[in-house]
């Protein structure tokens, strides 16, 4: 078996009496989409923040590309090639769509500390960024202000910025959130092809998308991973069904 790109060992995080992560061990293997599901309040956000480096665990470790990154912040992890998309779009709303992607490319090249030369006239950077926009289908909106995009277009732009980092792994926090049926289908189609480039850890509430995309699913309940397995294994797991009964089962 190949070495996982990203994995955690026994992560624990408490907030007062609340055990948000309890002995979480999770791995993301090359070429896969690994979905993380669980009811609201199960600790998905806390887990993804520990993976991205926004908060540090009380104990346990996070490993990325063979390196212990537990002590590194978000910036350092992004530099190592961990690309994150946010649950609520985090974009420079007063910048154009193209400028947002160029920012990603600047981060990827560690070239933000250049003080001269018009960045928007940098041909190589532009061409590369336009290509990324073309892939997500936003090229025609390249010079639109991001604040004027529709919600669905912003979700796609989030993914485009992540792509511009040429990452070794994606952390996607509910990329389908707020998308209509059409938007979800489009995003699902796009993510399906993306796994070949870099594996995706996908936190998602949209079960149709999860069951269509996921190679493996982990179920998080009260901070604990109660099951990890293929789609059919998870569907048939009685413990998972019990945990989800309140939400009307898994269908």
């Amino acid at each position, binding site marked *: 078996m190949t070495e996982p790109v990203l994995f955690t060992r026994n992560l624990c995080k408490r907030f007062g009496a609340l055990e948000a992560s309890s002995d979480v061990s999770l791995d993301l293997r090359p070429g896969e989409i690994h979905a993380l599901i669980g009811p609201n309040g199960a600790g998905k956000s806390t887990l993804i923040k520990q993976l*991205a480096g926004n908060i540090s665990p009380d104990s346990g470790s996070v490993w990325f590309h063979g390196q212990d990154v537990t002590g590194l*912040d*978000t*910036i*350092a992890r*992004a*530099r190592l090639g961990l*690309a*994150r998309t*946010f649950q609520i779009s*985090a*974009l*420079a*709303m*007063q*910048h*154009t769509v*193209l*400028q*947002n992607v*160029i*920012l*990603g490319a*600047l*981060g*990827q090249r*560690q*070239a*933000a*500390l*250049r*003080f*001269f*030369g*018009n*960045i*928007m006239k*940098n041909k190589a950077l532009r061409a590369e960024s336009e290509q990324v926009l073309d892939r997500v289908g936003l090229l025609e909106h390249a*010079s*639109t*202000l991001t604040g*004027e995009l529709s919600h669905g277009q912003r979700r796609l732009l989030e993914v485009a*910025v992540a792509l*511009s*980092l040429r990452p070794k792994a994606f952390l996607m926090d509910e990329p389908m959130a707020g998308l209509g049926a059409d938007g979800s289908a489009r995003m699902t189609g796009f993510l399906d092809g993306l796994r070949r480039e870099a594996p995706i850890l996908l936190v998602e509430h949209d079960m149709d998308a999860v069951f269509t995309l996921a190679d493996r699913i982990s179920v998080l309940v009260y901070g604990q991973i109660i099951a990890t397995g293929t789609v059919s294994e998870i569907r048939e797991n009685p413990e998972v069904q019990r945990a989800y009964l309140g939400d009307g089962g898994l269908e």
Partner: protein
Amino acid sequence: MSRESLINLLILLAMLVVPAWAVWADEPFILTLATKVAILALAGVGLNVALGLGGLVSFGHAAFFGIGGYAMGILASHAQSYTALMEWPVLIEGTKSMPVIWLVAVVASGFAALLIGALSLRTSGVYFIMITLAFGQMLYYFAISWPAYGGEDGLSIYVRNGFPGLHTLDPLQFLALSYGVLFAVLFLVSRVENSAFGLALDAARQNSDRVQAVGIAPYRLRLIAFVLSGMITGLAGALYADLNRFVSPTMFSWHLSGEIMVFVILGGVARLFGPVAGAALFIGMEHFLGGISEFWQVFLGLVLLSVVLFARGGLIGVLAPKGARHD
């Protein structure tokens, strides 16, 4: 041409027409007033780098203005009294040369901005405002209590410092020199705004999480912007001291920090020519309202209050609202 460029062009035109008229009408005082506008605008251009582009509400920029002013005052006072600034371990003498003074002013204020920025940028929001204000006051009280360079009374320099090839005491030539510095800095700032750094800094102002998530450290961007901003304001301080041939602790006062901010706001935050328009408006009001009433600052207050409450974006913002920016 965008509307903003057109307005910038009109501002430029006014900057040239007013002195030309003053020369024709033999009104040297207007030339001095125009010089004052250019120098204060320069201080505002400095603040605008931090405030407009970086979103850093510094209420302590008088610190850098004052350091620039005292760089001039200290160097020139030693030159005029023929005493060395320092004899050991190396001999440092005063100077009356503007380029040398400017260099010292820029380096000293940049260094101060590095120290103040490194501490202040650990915080944000309201803390940042209060801390920059407090550091400005610290230097103000230091200038008052340090007797070597005039203490509370300040320092007078009898002859304006020199610039190679110019007769700086001639109002028109000093105006031209100030314009030259202002335009050179405006050009540099516009280049920086359009650079990779400018894009990243502007993005960090809009969404810090985004910038971090692509592997760029907002703290470093902001600190660089703050230092650059302090250097420009420091240069303005050196020029301002030369305009008045006088420096005093009031250059460090928090009223001055407030006024520099007012230039930026009256003209338009994050607009290249905003501080120029703002400084011109401010000095214009001071001149004309000051002629009408001793209490002109009441009216200044009312104008500022109305701009903040009802005319957000300042003069340029009202005349050329920001629409889609096409690269």
